């Protein structure tokens, strides 16, 4: 039974989103959607905005991010550093609400370009073209792939890649479970499923709460010396659950999981200090993933 960590914190701005952000911009340019100095608009809980901000700065675009207010201060600091403008959306409804606000702004400003990570095929395609092949090249014996379920881009791209090249690989989603305020929708039909999502590409999907995510984030640091963000803890928790099932079934397994980013932008959340319960209480109500 082997666990393999794919270190996506080693990307240029420090997260797995660099892959999707660059590909979305490159594809938009190829389709003639972007003009020099134009304004990009994107709903994001942080990492995609940061990735896009760097790409935008390098390629001469402006960026406006719609980000929920209940995200760590480091995300705001990094976005501002890269030159992005931030519009905050209410904590209630989490990213659903950020998407709703962004769609409204896009309708009001037809000259802005919303690449829209939740529905842009170039997001998943980035993972089909790069993340998937890297995994298979580095770990041909891979049996399971575990990643976070947010926009679903990573899982859809890698899932489709393995369906085409090694279909027996199990594709496992770790979905962060937030505090009640994030699920505070006005009605249940205000739910949102990313347009990229194709459930047929997944083998299983686990909900992981903050306590388990924090526990595993700290274990990764203490036992392996890997300093990762809290969403990685959630992914590792699911990976360990999958490992346990395989072990109980007497199966060999080589389980690769994504380390989405480093812990740097979550230091202010208190995730890495005090007791687990203290840390859990501090991130209650936050979009911690």
């Amino acid at each position, binding site marked *: 039974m082997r666990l393999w960590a794919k270190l996506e914190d080693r990307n240029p701005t420090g997260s797995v989103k660099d892959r999707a952000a660059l590909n979305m911009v490159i594809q938009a340019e190829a389709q003639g959607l972007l003009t020099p100095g134009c304004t990009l608009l994107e*709903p994001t809980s942080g990492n995609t905005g940061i990735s896009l901000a760097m790409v935008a700065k390098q390629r001469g675009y402006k960026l406006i991010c719609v980000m929920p207010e209940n995200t760590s201060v480091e995300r705001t600091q990094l976005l501002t550093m890269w030159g992005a403008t931030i519009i905050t959306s209410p904590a209630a409804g989490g990213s659903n609400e950020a998407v709703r606000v962004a769609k409204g702004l896009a309708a009001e400003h037809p000259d802005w370009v919303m690449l829209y990570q939740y529905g842009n095929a170039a997001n998943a395609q980035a993972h089909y073209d790069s993340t998937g092949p890297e995994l298979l090249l580095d770990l041909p014996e891979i049996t399971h792939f575990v990643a976070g379920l947010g926009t679903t*881009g990573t899982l859809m791209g890698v899932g489709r890649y393995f369906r085409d090249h090694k279909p027996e690989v199990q594709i496992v989603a770790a979905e962060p479970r937030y505090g009640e305020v994030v699920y505070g929708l006005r009605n249940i039909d205000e739910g*949102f499923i990313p347009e990229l999502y194709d459930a047929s590409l997944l083998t299983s999907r686990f909900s992981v709460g903050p306590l388990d995510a924090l526990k595993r984030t700290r274990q990764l640091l203490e036992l392996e010396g890997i300093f990762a963000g809290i969403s990685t803890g959630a992914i590792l928790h699911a990976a360990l659950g999958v490992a346990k099932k395989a072990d109980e079934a007497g199966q060999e397994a080589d389980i690769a999981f994504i380390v989405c980013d480093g812990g740097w932008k979550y230091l202010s959340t208190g995730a890495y200090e005090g007791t687990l319960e203290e840390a859990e209480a501090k991130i209650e109500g936050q979009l911690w993933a």
Partner: protein
Amino acid sequence: MAIEVRVPTILREYTGGEKSVNAEGDTLQAVISNLEVNYPGIGGRLLDDSGLRRFVNVYLNDEDVRFLDGLNTSVGDKDAITILPAVAGG
């Protein structure tokens, strides 16, 4: 047999504000029918003609039932069911 069902804020109007209730049943379908008996109206918010409503996610011990047996998923004593509206991250 007692199965714990965790209810999201948006459905607590049916459970008198309770965030966690007990239910009985040996499948998820049976549990939902049992919930409807004690908390009338809740079933209609979870199910439509095609089964589980699109924007409703149900987890059995934290595993999404759509990847188990859906409404036919077996449920036993001490299992925990969590109901959540579909909220994306990213």
